[in-house]
């Protein structure tokens, strides 16, 4: 197993080194000196699939974009091998033309990205007075008027609850509670005819993410008109009830 990983490493590194299937395709065209306007579909498809197969043999996750491209190429290849029906009435869009368009476009943007990188190289060595640097100072996490971005607002939203700052490793919890999962669990908690408080929903000593996830979920449910919120008297809990629309809409 060890040798396998070692020998396969070069493939892994190569696939990782690409910014997606278009990048890999452009690499193959360059490597095999192929004109982008005259792509030998069968050859390129085979070469592309070698990379994907190797990665899969090694049980590496292959991003879905690669798999979609592999399927497209395979289809193009088999089509190219079939005899052409010149009189088949139907005007079919040539998938090769679309792929070419994508490749040419992506190649152009990749060139621009390289230009930007050169500018970045130059301009990170130039220091202007004083604006940009203020953003790097550790104590400027607070917001300057006019500088606050929406992201600052959203980050504030995600740090709503007091308490210990999140440790990076705890952030993995985010995947454990998506908004749709929250809706799923509320579906049971806010059963028809039942009244429940926000506190009861999030439970005792909830993690910050839990609060935020459920808070956002409840906002969404209110927006959809699936729940009503009530407050019996000042300082009391916010109580939630399902409306009839929940069952109607979902």
């Amino acid at each position: 197993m060890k040798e396998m990983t070692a020998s396969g490493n070069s493939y892994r590194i190569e696939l990782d080194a690409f910014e997606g299937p278009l990048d890999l395709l452009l690499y193959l065209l360059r490597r095999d000196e192929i004109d982008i306007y005259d792509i030998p579909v069968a050859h390129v498809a085979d070469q592309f699939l070698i990379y994907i197969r190797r990665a899969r043999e090694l049980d590496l996750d292959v991003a879905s974009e690669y798999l979609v491209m592999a399927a497209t190429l395979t289809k193009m290849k088999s089509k190219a091998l079939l005899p052409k029906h010149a009189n088949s009435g139907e005007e079919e869009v040539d998938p090769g033309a679309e792929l070419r368009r994508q490749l040419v476009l992506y190649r152009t943007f990749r060139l621009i990205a390289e230009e930007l990188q050169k500018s970045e190289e130059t301009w990170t060595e130039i220091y202007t007075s004083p604006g940009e640097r203020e953003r790097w100072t550790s104590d400027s996490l607070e917001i300057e008027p006019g500088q606050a971005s929406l992201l600052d607002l959203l980050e504030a939203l995600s740090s709503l609850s007091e308490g210990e700052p999140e440790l990076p490793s705890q952030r993995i919890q985010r995947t454990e509670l998506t908004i749709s999962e929250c809706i799923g669990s509320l579906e049971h908690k806010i059963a028809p005819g039942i009244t429940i408080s926000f506190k009861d929903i999030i439970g005792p000593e909830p993690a910050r993410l839990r609060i935020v996830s459920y808070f956002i979920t409840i906002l969404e449910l209110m927006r959809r008109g699936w729940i009503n919120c009530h407050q019996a008297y000042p300082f009391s809990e916010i109580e939630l009830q399902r409306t009839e629309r929940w069952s109607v809409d979902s």
Partner: protein
Amino acid sequence: MILDRLAREVEALIFASEKPLSIQQLCEYTGSGEDSIHQALDRLNRSFLDHQHCLTIIEIAGGFRIATDREFGDVVSQLFEGRKPGKLSRAALETMAVIAYSQPCTRIAIESIRGVNCDSAIRTLLERDMIKISGRMETPGRPLLYSTTMAFLEYFGLSNLDHLPRFDEIEELLGMSSSELEERDLFGAGEE
């Protein structure tokens, strides 16, 4: 009087630093002795003066920084006229976020989400014109309802309230991609 390499380095360092730089720091970053640094500072200041620049290096708060001649104070102060002072605190930002997403809402609602008293954050936001009182809730006690203002939109560079990201978009914007998570997993697995 010609500025040597050291003088130029000192100038670049002092210019670029957001805090005054001490002699010790200047020595460290340039790899020179205190005497050489003092000479470089003298040369720079003589050059600024001789050639009628309005810049000078001054010693302040235990270090050196570049300042403009005092005589230009009036001209320069025009830059800062009408500038909104102060920054929003974390508490104010959090409160802002709750109001933005659940407006109109009561203080109690905000507090039940933030889990802390929000009086002063709300007061700040009212003073800064970020929120306004938009009515009363028709429940016992008829608590005040708060909503966001135009100033709020301007502050966060939004042209329209409906440009606030939706809940699925928030996940997208704040969440992590699966590949990032995998990296963390791998990383975290070794640590434990």
